[in-house]
């Protein structure tokens, strides 16, 4: 064990560090069965089952026209919130974040890597969900406005859920995050307008449900993709407000170890 190379310290360029870190997290994600179940298998299963069977009444029009936007919202919920919260909480618990703090990768770089990972996974989910939905006979409204509005809703919703995920992951115990993030996934699956139309809920509850990020996402996506409405300003505003508040709080409260 002789002739070790002499010290040659120095940091790599930031984009290289971010790409490497995001790549590792992506590899870990693909090797984690529970995460794949959450981000890919459950949304796909729900898409296929609920679009073909009349399990629920979804109002006029093709069933898939209602289900597909809801599943897109669910995909963002699973990746930006549940998966990110659980992953980050355990990284904190096992000292992974702390150890990264001693490397040249800055905290901003780590957050950029996580954002890149979330966006990459969501891009994959969206492509897959749209492709399967089209095969199931989906005819979304396609125009410059609808495509950009839908992307804006997906990105704003993703930002809001990422903020909430980091708020949770940075403040409470990993086991509690695991329970809370999975519970929130199930609850929002039920009341987030993903599978069950918000119109079926009591009128008094509707404004509240629409003010939740999942409700605003599914509502905005349906408005543009199903009904060809213009830019869903109110939903975007709700999502932006959630994003600003959650990210702001997370930045103040996040504990790295």
């Amino acid at each position, binding site marked *: *064990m*002789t*002739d*070790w*190379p*002499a*010290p*040659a*310290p*120095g*940091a*790599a360029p930031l984009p*290289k*560090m971010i*790409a*490497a*870190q995001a*790549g*590792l997290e992506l*590899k*870990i994600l693909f*090797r*984690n069965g529970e995460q794949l179940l959450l981000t890919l298998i459950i949304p796909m299963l729900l898409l296929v089952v609920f679009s073909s069977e009349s399990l629920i009444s979804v109002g006029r029009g093709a069933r898939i026209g209602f289900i597909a936007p809801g599943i897109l919202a669910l995909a963002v919920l699973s990746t930006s919130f549940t998966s990110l919260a659980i992953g980050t909480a*355990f*990284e904190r618990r*096992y*000292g*992974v974040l*702390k*150890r990264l*703090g*001693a*490397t*040249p*990768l*800055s905290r901003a770089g780590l957050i950029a890597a996580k954002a890149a990972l979330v966006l990459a996974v969501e891009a994959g989910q969206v492509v897959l969900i749209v492709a399967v939905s089209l095969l199931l006979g989906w005819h979304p409204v396609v125009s410059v406005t609808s495509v950009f509005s839908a992307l804006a809703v997906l990105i704003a919703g993703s930002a809001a859920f990422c903020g909430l995920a980091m708020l949770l992951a940075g403040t409470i115990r990993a086991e509690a995050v695991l329970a809370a993030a999975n519970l929130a996934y199930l609850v929002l699956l039920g009341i987030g307008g993903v599978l069950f139309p918000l119109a079926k809920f009591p009128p008094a509850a509707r404004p509240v449900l629409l003010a939740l990020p999942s409700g605003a996402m599914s509502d905005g996506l349906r408005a543009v993709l199903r009904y060809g409405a213009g830019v869903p300003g109110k939903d975007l505003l709700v999502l932006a407000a959630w994003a600003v508040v959650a990210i702001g709080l997370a930045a103040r409260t996040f504990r790295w*170890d």
Partner: protein
Amino acid sequence: MNDVPAVEITGLVKSYGRTRAVRGLSMRASRGQVTAVLGPNGAGKTTTVEICEGYLRPDEGTVRVLGLDPQRDGRALRSRVGVMPQSGGIPSMARASDYLKVMASFYASPLDPAKLMDRLGLTESARTAYRRLSGGQQQRLSLAAAIIGRPELVFLDEPTAGLDPQARHATWDLITGLRASGTTIILTTHYLEEAERLADYVAIVDQGRLVAEGTTAELTGSHGQLRFAADPALDTAGLLAALPPDSVTKESPAGHYLIELPGGVDPQVIATVTAWCAEQGVLARNLRFDGKTLEDVFLELTGRDLRS
């Protein structure tokens, strides 16, 4: 610039709530050397190292690492300093080789991950997830990650805790090799043998304070012992007369002789002993001399009581 010590700590104080972990510690570590921070559990070793690494903010006192302030100049230090935490810090699902490649990609001129794994005997586990590695493999991967960026200074927090003798020796060889390449190493340990073998300089810390520092030779002082085996029941009065004053000879058990030399063992003493043996016509077998061990010094300074 190489006159700047690797680490210089002055009057460091750090408390957690009502627990005072570090109570006015001062020490320095020179560049190009292995410095061992030795102390019983709870002595404040890890707290001190974590302040040097920039994780913790000191309550009082100053800490300079490579002449920089770990709090203010953390960014500049992170590319120059390698850190091996006491445990963990590696994603449990990551494969050993994937993790090391990512760590390598954080640095400008890193070591080759495959070669490093080979040198550390990790090649066969390259595709194994961290959580499925043995304890020794996990420690070696953690050590590899600390040095892959070719840092000029490495902090190793109990690098051989829980390792089997083979893995411990492999780690010692690596530390010796790193030192020879010009890397400065600060290691905390409570294994006295580790400090004795590796360290150019030893700082003994207890209850948040520095209680002794120096080279192993300085710490163990000049007190020496000389042992040999020969025929039983020799009359050692003549020998004693020829040795320096205050020397003591003992025979215990029969045929095993111990000479205590408060002034230390020097070539003259050995010549005197062998000349006396030749005069007596006896063959001295297993002639060897020991100083006071670091363990003796450590226990004298930190006490023999068990601490909870």
